[in-house]
């Protein structure tokens, strides 16, 4: 059931691009992400968003239905966050409808949705396990990437703990009133805290048994980046940029 904790991670581990080097996917998805925020939102967001959605639904193996489901929660945040742009303050009514705001809100929602699709494209194809060790190439000290790897490992265990405590509390009416719910949440946090450090202590022994001397190095096995994939990605990015700029000329 940990699958439900991180659906994107599960997809990344089972999808058709699992064996690709993370650089391949970074060039494609993060390149699109840069296009999404840097290009003029209209029609840039529409172009980037469509390309990302098609890639997500097709070659990346997520499927159209699931892609839309994954977008739902962030989309709700984005729309609510853009609502204030529809109104302006001041004038006789303090708050008034701002006709110009609709276009600005539309551009904002468009850009943010397109960017989120690019993020989904990366997250749903690239396991964190492949990303973390490579952050050190970007200048992140190994101490930090190793701590990040431990956080990754432990957080799933602790999510399980939190869920089990929650289920046990629910069985004993732990959410019947608001006061009970608050005490229950505190109980969960307390249990997770105790468990987190207990887990860390026990893991220390488990690692010592295999010769742990302070260094958490592991062998990261991955195929080399694919020149063809990266070249096609760069080509696609170029097409996205030129299409957007051309369309913009046409619209203007």
């Amino acid at each position: 059931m940990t699958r439900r904790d991180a659906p994107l991670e599960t997809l990344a581990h089972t999808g058709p691009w699992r064996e690709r080097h993370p650089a391949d996917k970074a060039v494609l998805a993060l390149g699109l992400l840069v296009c999404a925020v840097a290009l003029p939102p209209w029609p840039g967001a529409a172009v980037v968003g469509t390309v990302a959605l098609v890639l997500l639904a097709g070659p990346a193996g997520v499927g159209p239905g699931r892609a839309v489901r994954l977008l739902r929660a962030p989309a709700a945040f984005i729309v609510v966050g853009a609502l204030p742009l529809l109104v302006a303050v001041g004038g006789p009514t303090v708050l008034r409808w701002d006709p110009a705001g609709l276009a600005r809100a539309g551009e904002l929602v468009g850009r943010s949705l397109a960017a989120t699709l690019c993020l989904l494209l990366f997250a749903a194809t690239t396991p964190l396990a492949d990303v973390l060790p490579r952050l050190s190439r970007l200048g992140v000290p190994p101490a930090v990437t190793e701590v990040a790897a431990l956080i990754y490992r432990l957080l799933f265990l602790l999510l399980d703990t939190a869920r089990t405590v929650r289920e046990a509390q629910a069985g004993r009416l732990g959410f019947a009133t608001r006061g009970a719910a608050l005490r229950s949440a505190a109980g969960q946090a307390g249990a997770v805290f105790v468990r987190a450090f207990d887990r860390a202590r026990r893991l220390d022994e488990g690692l010592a048994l295999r010769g742990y001397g302070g260094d958490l190095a592991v062998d990261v096995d991955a195929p080399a980046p694919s020149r063809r994939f990266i070249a096609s990605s760069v080509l696609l990015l170029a097409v996205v940029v030129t299409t957007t700029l051309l369309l913009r000329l046409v619209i203007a």
Partner: protein
Amino acid sequence: MTPLGRLAEVHFAYEPDRPVLRGADLDIRRGVRLAVLGPNGGGKTTAFRLLAGTVAPDSGTVEVLGTPVSRSRRALLELRRRVQLVLQDPDDQLFAATVAQDVSFGPINLGLPRDEVRARVDAALTALDITDLAGRPPHLLSNGQKKRVTIAGAVAMRPDLLVLDEPTAGLDPAAVEATLATLAELHAAGTTIVLSTHDVDLAHRWADEVAVLVDGEFRAGAPDDLLVDEKLLAAARLGPAWAPAVRALLRRHGLEHLSPSVPGEALRSALPADGRS
């Protein structure tokens, strides 16, 4: 008579393409001791969660005392008084600073007066024989002690039906016996008890009725019938129980009166009687 708990034609899947229960039927008669056997990941815990109302079936009916289990707030409140589920891993279940506080959690949430809460906590700790642990922080207890505390937390709710997920897993044989003795007392006091286990011999020894989960469905019946069915048990990733198998062998040779229910009895029957050879 209306069964205390019932699953009828229940289908359930956590993920669409991996069904866990596929048309499962199970009746839990009041007063029974029922052991549920099945492979890991086979749906035992899921069936228990359905009865406790923490998950809802995709299709089919789950009833407690003839009333369909509803996930409405009010209905769940009522359900918690009827059915208590004790989960498997006690490490992930105890959250209060002391054992007594943890056990008091349910009764306090029932809105009982302070005296009644105290009385229930005391009674539950006594029933589980852990009054000496009352003031201890749970995370410093042994696994067996933690398990007893989680059972006490459920017992303090005074349920009609007590459901235990693998209550003997990880316990040594003496602690298993102690747990079974406690469950026998609770049963004698009127609680209907359902537990899951991998241990077919334990199920045979303890249960009035057994239900074996195979391919998302229950096969229920008498322990003596089901726990010698090699095909059924193999399908559930289990093996037959010793006691009925040995009885069958002895019966064939006219020695049924010697049938042991535990190995110790076999050893004692094998000894020369009264010092005569």
